[in-house]
């Protein structure tokens, strides 16, 4: 009798474990992820971009371990080197490996970041002396608009702040990329974006700077993670591209545009499609494609020529 009770208890426990998604081994495949490994703010590839099937127990770290030679520290939670390129301090500057999933910097370590399939993982080795935190980047386009981030798909709220025709262009581009774009709420008006929607601000910098997330750019890359700044007003406005050290490196004149991403606290990422003037905004709107944004933290444009930021 006692044996039978024990057997029933074990069977119930096993059934409960099976129902809770338990099992032996790494589990079933849940989809494919892309892996990009670069150095120096995406300037040089370290590994050829690849796609990898992931299973239900996979994390960012496990995928990286499968596809590259890595060394870890602090109990396997911190990537020390990828393919021999090691975290280091040189000439008083600190170099480390950082990762983005769907263009958003993670708040947890790679070993604790679960994957659900469809994510774009980007590891970059960079000098972080000027900005330790770069909360969002544009280089995983069309992510995070396609799959969202943190394992949840998000809607996209395009906020037209004097962007004019560029707003429509941005909406069209996002819709074609497969994003769930929220309905337009009126010209030159802030849309009633859903809670947790990814915002895309479109308009000249003089308008965008009133937004608290966008205004972080004026506090430097250590606050916004964007290596760009704006100087002057009106016809004399200039876009300044900053170098890796956070200092002005290149000045862009009239017609200059910027595509960048930032994030304020835990709010969803905010993309900025802006420029020193209307022509700049339209030029920036034209950059929203894989060819122009791939593996870049932010991009400036002037006269049809794109410059990755930070300026190297």
């Amino acid at each position, binding site marked *: 009798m006692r044996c039978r009770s024990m057997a029933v208890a074990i069977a119930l426990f096993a059934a409960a*474990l099976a129902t*809770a*998604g*338990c*099992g*032996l*081994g*790494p*589990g079933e495949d849940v989809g494919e992820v892309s892996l990009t490994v670069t150095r120096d703010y995406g300037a040089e590839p370290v590994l050829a971009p690849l796609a990898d099937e992931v*299973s*239900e*127990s996979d*994390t960012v*770290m*496990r995928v990286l*371990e*499968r596809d590259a030679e*890595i*060394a*870890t520290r602090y*109990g*396997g*939670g911190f990537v020390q080197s990828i393919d021999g390129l090691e975290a280091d301090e040189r000439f008083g500057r600190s170099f480390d490996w950082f990762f983005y999933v769907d263009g958003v910097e993670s708040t947890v370590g790679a*070993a*604790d970041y*679960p994957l659900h399939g469809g994510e774009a993982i980007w590891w970059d080795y960079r000098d972080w002396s000027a900005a330790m935190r770069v909360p969002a980047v544009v280089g995983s386009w069309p992510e995070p608009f396609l799959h969202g981030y943190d394992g949840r798909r998000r809607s996209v709220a395009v906020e037209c702040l004097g962007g004019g025709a560029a707003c429509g262009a941005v909406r069209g581009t996002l819709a074609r990329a497969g994003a769930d774009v929220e309905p337009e709420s009126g010209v030159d008006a802030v849309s009633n974006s859903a809670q947790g929607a990814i915002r895309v601000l479109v308009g000249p910098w003089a308008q965008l700077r009133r937004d608290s997330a966008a205004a972080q750019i004026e506090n430097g890359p250590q606050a916004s993670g964007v290596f760009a700044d704006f100087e002057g007003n009106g016809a004399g406005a200039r876009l300044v591209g900053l170098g890796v050290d956070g200092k002005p490196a290149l000045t862009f004149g009239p017609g200059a545009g910027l595509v960048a991403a930032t994030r304020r606290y835990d709010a969803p990422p905010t993309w900025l499609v802006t420029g020193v003037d209307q022509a700049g905004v339209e030029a920036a709107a034209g950059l929203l494609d894989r060819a122009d944004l791939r593996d870049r933290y932010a991009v400036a444009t002037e006269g049809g020529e794109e410059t990755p930021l930070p300026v190297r």
Partner: protein
Amino acid sequence: MRSAFAYTPRRGALQAASPGAAVVYLGALVAVAFLYSTPLVLIAVGAAGTLAGYLAGAGRAVRAALWLGLAIALPIVVVNALVVDRGATVLARLGEWPLFGQVNVTAEAIADGAVFGLRAVVVMIAFGVYSACVDPDRVLRALRPIAGRSALTATLVSRLVPVTAADAGRLRDAGRLRGPAAAPLGRAALLRRLLAGSLDRAVDAAATLELRGYSLEPPRPRQLVERFSPPRWGKSFNGASRFDGRFYAAGGIVLVSAVVAKSLGADGFDAYPTIELGIEPATLALSALIVLAGLAPWRRHA
């Protein structure tokens, strides 16, 4: 019954050695256990401790330490496997658990926990040998010139804790002897009585210490050595033993070799992201040296 870890005077080299020599010798083994994660070196340290313990006649303490160490090691392995979700080789998925979140058991987390557990076992063996072979009174006496008050406190604790435990046993026996009809003796009542007795004893001890001049300045170290270290077997007049040299040498050689070997890459174990166990010639040489160091307490005429 005496605890397996209680000091038992024996005519062994480790027992005769001065506390400093014994501490350096066993401390070097413990230091190596904390310095290295390679299982081979940890096993060598455990073997050295076991060998030293058996040669010093403390086999019972070694066995008790081994069991105690295993009792500590097993939960470490289990908890590490459940809490740490790192490592590339997922063996089992246990779903979402309250507090733990998603639990995946990986081979790497088990190996990492096993190394922690092995370290706990090895350190327990070294402490077991120390406890059974090194006279605590001599250790405290050696400490007295350096930290008089701490030594006095430690002496009182090491005396009064066993006395209090014996008191508790006596009170429990007395409670049982009241007969089956008597109400059971509650823990609160027992603790109250023990506390009262301890306070009485503490006042007596304080008065005795006062009468013996413990509130005065401590005598100089040389006077202390002369007063408290009468010549005994295997010891010279100044408290040193003829065995001290070998224990200092063994401890020193083990420690220096461990540091040198570590710089040569002898600690080739990594649990994450995949288990890597590199056994270099330096690892093998160091392990052999450590096991040999376990022979230090050996005496031709026991």
